[in-house]
């Protein structure tokens, strides 16, 4: 099967000047040498801690920021180095839902005008757009009366439903969900997650869910990609990655999540020495080398290759 998104060796580098007038520039590799295929109809969970580059990757996928190298094919069309028109066309396949539902919506616009605006921009008539907005609202289980509300009149969960409805009217193939439930309460989170799963089945959508919540990922995704310091360190099915983690970082991450069961208190814990942001100065070294409990001489000199350990389960570590 041809992947809907094919990412190969993607890089995104940010540069910043070292001081106001200095010409010397420092570079940060937000996403480094990232390769991954995403297939139609799957839910891919992208997990990593703050600064691991997961949101930057999403922004590159959406065409909101340009990559600085590598290859990104969407539906077979090359995006790196493509013209504005092509990127715009590819973008029609995408929709996005962000973390904070309040900042997602324009506070001065009614729900209706927020939803129909992109349709009208695409040249749809107002009546038809209204009809579509109504449909979208019913598919996120809200009744029509909400069309006239303003965002501040809605609860966080309702706002997030509106954001999802607005993404749906564009009939996207791929939805990028950037921390879709982390601003919500537990009971509301459950509602939204179940809704997202239902919609995915109904419309055969492809989801890329970005989150730092392992429990959410386990519940919704088919495959998981783990990012650390801009690199994809491990990916595979949820069973593979969560039950048999290969990369030391994945192992630490899984064992850092507090388990909601007091009987298993103080269960297996992993020490994660060092501080966030401790990376070797040598850009060729493994990004985890300074904090890895299993570090070897070799890790400090070269980056391990991404290796397929069992079919479909990849990890970037010399030890596997």
């Amino acid at each position: 099967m041809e992947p809907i998104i094919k990412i190969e060796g993607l890089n995104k580098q940010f540069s910043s000047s070292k001081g106001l007038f200095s010409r010397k520039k420092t570079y940060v590799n937000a996403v480094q040498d990232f390769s991954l295929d995403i297939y139609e109809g799957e839910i891919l969970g992208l997990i990593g801690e703050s600064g691991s580059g997961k949101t930057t990757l999403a922004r590159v996928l959406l065409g909101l920021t340009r990559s600085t190298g590598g290859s990104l094919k969407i539906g077979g069309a090359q995006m790196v180095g493509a013209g504005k028109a092509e990127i715009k066309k590819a973008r029609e396949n995408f929709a996005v839902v962000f973390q904070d539902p309040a900042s997602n919506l324009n506070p001065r616009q009614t729900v209706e005008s927020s939803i129909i605006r992109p349709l009208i921009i695409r040249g749809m008539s107002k009546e038809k757009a209204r009809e579509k907005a109504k449909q979208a609202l019913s598919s996120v289980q809200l009744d029509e009366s909400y069309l006239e509300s303003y965002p501040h009149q809605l609860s966080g969960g309702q706002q997030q439903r509106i954001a999802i409805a607005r993404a749906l009217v564009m009939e996207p193939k791929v939805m990028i969900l950037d921390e879709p439930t982390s601003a919500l309460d537990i009971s509301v989170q459950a509602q939204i997650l179940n809704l997202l799963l239902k919609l995915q089945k109904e419309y055969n959508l492809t989801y890329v869910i970005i989150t730092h919540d392992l429990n959410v990922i386990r519940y919704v995704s088919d495959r998981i990609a783990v990012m650390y310091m801009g690199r994809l360190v491990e990916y595979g099915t949820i069973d593979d990655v969560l039950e048999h983690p290969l990369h030391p970082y994945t192992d630490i991450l899984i064992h850092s999540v507090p388990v909601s069961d007091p009987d298993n208190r103080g269960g297996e814990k992993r020490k994660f020495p060092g501080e966030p942001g401790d990376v070797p100065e040598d850009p060729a070294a493994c990004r985890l080398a300074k904090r890895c409990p299993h570090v070897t001489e070799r890790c400090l000199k070269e980056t391990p290759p991404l290796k397929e350990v069992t079919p479909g389960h990849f990890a970037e570590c010399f030890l596997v």
Partner: protein
Amino acid sequence: MSDTILRVEHLSVDYKIKAGWLSAVNDVSFSIDRGKVLALVGESGCGKSTVAHTIMRLSIDHNERIGGNIFFEDRDLTKISEAEMEKVRGKHIGMIFQNPLDSLNPVYRSGTQVAEALRLDGMSKREARERVIQLYRDVQIPNPEERIEAFPHELSGGMRQRVMIAMMLARHPQLLIADEPTTALDVTVEAQVLNIMKEMCDKENASVLLITHNFGIVAEIADRIGIMYAGELVEEGEVHEIFRNPVHPYSQALLAALPKIKKSEGTIRTIEGTVPRILEKKPECRFANRCPYADETCRCSSPEAKFIEDGHMVRCHKR
């Protein structure tokens, strides 16, 4: 000396708003024993932070009405003067908040701010510096001699929260109120900060009132758990007991809404409806409009707190 460090009795807090009095906390009673951790859990707006702030008397203005008593080591905190309360805060009860950047002054070095607390107790500058370095070492901040010179913005989120813990522990409080202490942190950092907090409290035999919405953290470090809904404590008990055998319909629904499974294994439960805003205290169960078991009794009389067994409180007509 009694074993109970904090006893809250029939605490209620109402805020004055345009439309009348908003009942934020209603008839909440609980106690914390020495060296124990009580976690107050609930969704946003359930009043858990209001309870914490009221104990510390952090929200006093003319917009609220407070009822009930708060006994800290047999002293009623609702009765003492502001000057006396000033002495309790920090010295006897320490507090940390969710966002350490809001609690630290951006223009002072982090070490100076920790030392300030010690200097209040009459410690000399040099002594205070030594003690701060020791405290930084205790909360596992690397290179403490350098880090005390760092400004808050130069520290990472986890490091800042550790500075807050150091600051709070500097004066050996017997009770520690932690309001969502790790919510803003990454999981690996969260685990680290929680461990440090737990270790330090064990060492000092300090009690903790932990406010959180994360059941994982509760399961990990709490001895007892209180579940709040719409301003009321609906269930309170020993942590294993509540996780194994939640009795209140809201506690049951909340625990069932945690995503613990894979989608291939089933669907997690949701709670339909929304939390009511209680403007007028009516005789009714506040959960009645969302409760699957609600009947006439629930809609026309408020359930009283009752003990179904030793140390397991529930507020429900049906139990």
